């Protein structure tokens, strides 16, 4: 292996990415927006844990659920796939209200997991759901 081969590889990668994009292989899977979808995913992933509350991003790119055992269940889109993870409450490292690009209010939630970047949930109303506000205050404490 030498830098010439790597340069050739870089040109090849750029060509392949262009080709894939031209073939329409840049895909985005969105959530349906239905809370039941998130509840079903949480039930399967968290092995039967009861789901207390669910919040789905207005743009259908992320969702957050509060489980009866105190854990939170996070879902986000990643290309044409969904990624889901159950976190202990102490794994929420930051939870901030932010100004969204669209209408309403948004909450950004960061987790102590380098492989799971922060979630952004936008709500088309003046306030996020009350349970998320409680979670935010607990994370800030």
């Amino acid at each position, binding site marked *: *292996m*030498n830098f010439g081969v790597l340069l050739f590889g870089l040109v090849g990668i750029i060509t392949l990415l262009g080709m894939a994009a031209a073939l329409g*292989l840049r895909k985005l899977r969105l959530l349906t927006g239905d809370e039941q979808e998130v509840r079903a995913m949480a039930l399967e992933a968290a092995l039967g844990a009861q789901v207390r509350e669910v919040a789905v991003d207005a743009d259908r790119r992320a969702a957050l659920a509060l489980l009866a055992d105190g854990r939170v269940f996070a879902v986000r889109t990643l*290309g044409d796939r969904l990624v889901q993870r159950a976190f202990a409450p102490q794994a929420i490292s930051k939870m901030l209200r932010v100004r969204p690009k669209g209408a309403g209010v948004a909450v950004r939630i960061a987790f102590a997991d380098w492989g*799971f970047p922060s979630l952004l949930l936008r709500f088309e109303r003046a306030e996020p759901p009350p349970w998320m506000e409680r979670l935010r205050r607990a994370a800030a404490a």
Partner: protein
Amino acid sequence: MQTPEHLPDLVALAAPAFIALIGIELLIVRLTGRGAYEVRDMGASLGMGLGNGVLKILAGGLGAGAFYWVSQYKLFEIPWAWWSLALCFLAEDLAYYWFHRISHESRYFWASHVIHHSSQHYNLSTALRQTWTGSIACTFIFWLPLPLIGFPVEMIFLFSGFSLVYQFWIHTELIGKLGPLEWVLNTPSHHRVHHATNPQYLDRNYAGVLIIWDRLFGSFETEIEPPRYGILSNLATFNPLRIATHEWVAIGRDLLSARSLTQAIGYVFGPPGWSRDGSRQTSAAVKAAALARRAA
């Protein structure tokens, strides 16, 4: 047989074929709807492959240096001959099997290897989603017995390169089962099982070229139900730096929470998913839970 003066770098020679075959697979996937590609996932995989190449140039000398150092103490003088080539091929493939198996069973080695499993897709680009930290983490130690036995270092490199090139084509959903070859060779079907997170498929089929090692050491599983690809805690990012380092960061966090040396050792060298309070699941626990559910 004379000692060859110059041996080809098989991986570098194969690079144009890798790119061409990914292009062909892209077209087939688009035209037939079989298999799956997503641009950013592919970009992440190929970016990881490129980064692996850079780090091999920068840190690959560590492994080579260790091989040459160990070869000073070799037990036998093994010449270049047809029989030594055959033996070296088998020995390299066996070393790969144990490197691969332990890379799934011990979190220290998993932290480098998890990168290769971190895509939820399974296509030829996934083959190039390779570690950035393997050389630094000294994963080459699994091959050190070979120069110690007396195999020439260049011969070992020849077969490790061959193994890497061989394993490229098995990362595809477009090829089904291959009849009698399934008994001897690691095939696309066997390797799909290896990349799957279905409980019965977890930690199975570690082979490089020959599947016989899995049959011999009890880690073989045949492909029956459709595989679901990825890892138990899938990554939510296409960022190559996060992909390359996420498990090392997680190990660091866990070490900070460890309350004893035993716990620290468990977090670093225990099976992936081990935790001091049992709040996470290892592959073995996931398999056991799935079996219990099936039995209930």
